[in-house]
């Protein structure tokens, strides 16, 4: 019997039979913890293993991205506890200057095609974008992974999702992703691995693949892969638990309305909704291409006076590219606020919070009540967020 992508990756890291439904032990190429969860990993580790060393410090990492640099005493203490532990054991820390941990791992070549990576980040499965198995886990699991270099995992079944047709020229990777959030909901690929096929995903650049794979968490899936033009393919006779075909021909820009990423409507239904603030960034839309698209729209325009546009690059390298390509200057001239790389704007803390009554349009991945403050958050792609901030209301670039 042939193998799906997830079965192939896990099999390459396990002596057990990695067929879907089996629970296997799997070797981990990378085990990591961030500033959330990390301190508990350290605590568990020291409590259970005392002064013993991790299995392999060279495969063990800390990434600080949630609150970078620390914006509260709690985070400052937590980050320092991780740094002390890292120094003691010779573990590398991608510190508060580096940006979103998963993105840093892709840039550094730590998340490789067919690799296995775990960490204390529920969006670790974003690594499916480069054909790598990534999974978020709790602090007990990660402390164990630090110590042994292994973890157990129930090999998920796979669902084959085929997208038919070509989206409209105005649609970005985010629009495709939001459409999938609506169509797949939180049940159709729940606890499964999804493989996406079809012209619309085949042509996605890495940044677009990252956008799509980052929101598999919001669809309750284990992970998503885009095999065509990707580094790893499934066998022709692999077994799938389900087969879903979706027509995306002419797909227009999409917007997720509160209260969830799965309540999605076309931009046309929301046009004219007044906004107070905008955000472009997060692990979903924090790449150079995302900001280049926003800059294209903002060039020669100003962010509306009563509106605040917040911009957070995913990583320091993205920031550098924005600097080199003049994107930073365009964004600055438009009136946007640009801050240092990381999860700011998505997680609580830093530029992220909305006040009661505030309406925000964001390129992030979650708009659950309270997630980014007391306001209401709409999710969209970078082009729509940029245009909306100029218009002061939900709008597309063609409305300017």
């Amino acid at each position, binding site marked *: 019997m042939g193998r799906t992508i997830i079965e192939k990756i896990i099999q390459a890291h396990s002596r057990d039979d990695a067929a879907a439904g*089996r*629970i296997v*032990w799997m070797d981990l190429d990378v085990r990591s913890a961030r500033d959330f969860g990390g301190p508990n990993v350290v605590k568990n580790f020291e409590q259970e293993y005392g002064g013993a060393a991790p299995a392999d410090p060279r495969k063990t990492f800390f990434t600080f991205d949630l609150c970078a640099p620390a914006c509260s005493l709690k985070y400052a203490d937590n980050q320092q506890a991780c740094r002390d532990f890292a120094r003691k054991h010779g573990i590398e820390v991608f510190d508060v200057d580096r940006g979103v941990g998963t993105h840093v791992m892709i840039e550094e070549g730590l998340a490789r095609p067919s690799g296995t990576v775990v960490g204390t980040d529920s969006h670790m499965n974003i690594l499916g974008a480069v054909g790598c198995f990534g999974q978020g886990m709790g602090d*007990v699991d990660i402390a*164990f992974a630090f*110590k*042994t270099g292994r973890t*157990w995992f129930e090999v998920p079944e796979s669902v084959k999702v085929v997208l038919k047709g070509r989206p409209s020229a105005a649609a970005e990777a985010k629009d495709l992703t939001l459409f999938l959030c609506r169509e797949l909901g939180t049940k159709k690929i729940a606890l499964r691995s999804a493989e996406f096929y079809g012209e619309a995903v085949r042509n996605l650049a890495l940044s677009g693949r990252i956008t799509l794979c980052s929101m598999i968490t919001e669809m309750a899936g284990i992970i998503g892969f885009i095999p065509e033009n990707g580094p790893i393919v499934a066998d022709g006779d692999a077994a799938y638990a389900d087969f879903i075909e979706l027509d995306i021909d002419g797909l227009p820009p999409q917007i997720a309305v509160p209260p969830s990423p799965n309540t999605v409507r076309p931009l046309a239904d929301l046009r004219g909704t007044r906004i107070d603030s905008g955000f472009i960034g997060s692990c979903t839309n924090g790449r150079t291409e995302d900001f280049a698209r926003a800059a294209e729209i903002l060039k020669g325009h100003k962010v509306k006076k009563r509106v605040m546009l917040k911009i957070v690059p995913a990583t320091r390298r993205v920031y550098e590219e924005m600097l080199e390509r003049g994107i930073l200057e365009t964004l600055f001239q438009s009136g946007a606020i640009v801050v240092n790389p990381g999860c700011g704007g998505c997680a609580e803390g830093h530029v992220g919070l909305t006040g009661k009554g505030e309406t925000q349009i964001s390129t992030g991945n979650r708009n659950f009540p309270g997630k980014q403050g007391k306001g209401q958050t709409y999710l969209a792609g970078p082009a729509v967020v940029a245009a909306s901030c100029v218009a002061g209301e939900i709008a597309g670039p063609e409305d300017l």
Partner: protein
Amino acid sequence: MDKDIRQGRAVVLLNEHGKIIEDIDTDQIFHNAHLHITDIAQMGPYAFGNLEGWKDFPKNCGEGDILIAGRNFGAGSSRQQAVDCFTALKVGAIFAPSFSAIYFRNAVNSGFPVLKIHDLEALIAGKGIVTDDVIRFDVRSGRAENVTRGTAFKIEPMSPVQHDIFVAGDLFKYGKRIK
């Protein structure tokens, strides 16, 4: 060896219509109002504190009881307390057709027996398992026996991984054995 074979009283989680309850989430198992409790010994009284019809469960349950629940048991948050409260009450095992992924991970990692049961609906409909029946089961072979009725049924045997951790006691104890 002994540890593989267990016996206990069945407690079938039915609703007021006599139907098996599905999708029991972690808030129904251990409400978030009690998340500040970190001492396992104190978690017992809150088990099913938010599950309609089952709020007296901690008072009525006994050591070794086997909970039988509908599909997707333990959906929702990642709280470890939703497993630990049953450990505190010395519950013997939970059988369900499926568990949420995180709940299953948490239970396996703490050495608590969670087992997938086959054809639960038919068993319940045919009165193959009723609360208070005495059940004996083998976590290794998946053989299960209704001692009260003299009938047999099937559970999914523990995978080698789950069994290794179960025998060691928990994930950390297992980790110490292999290194």
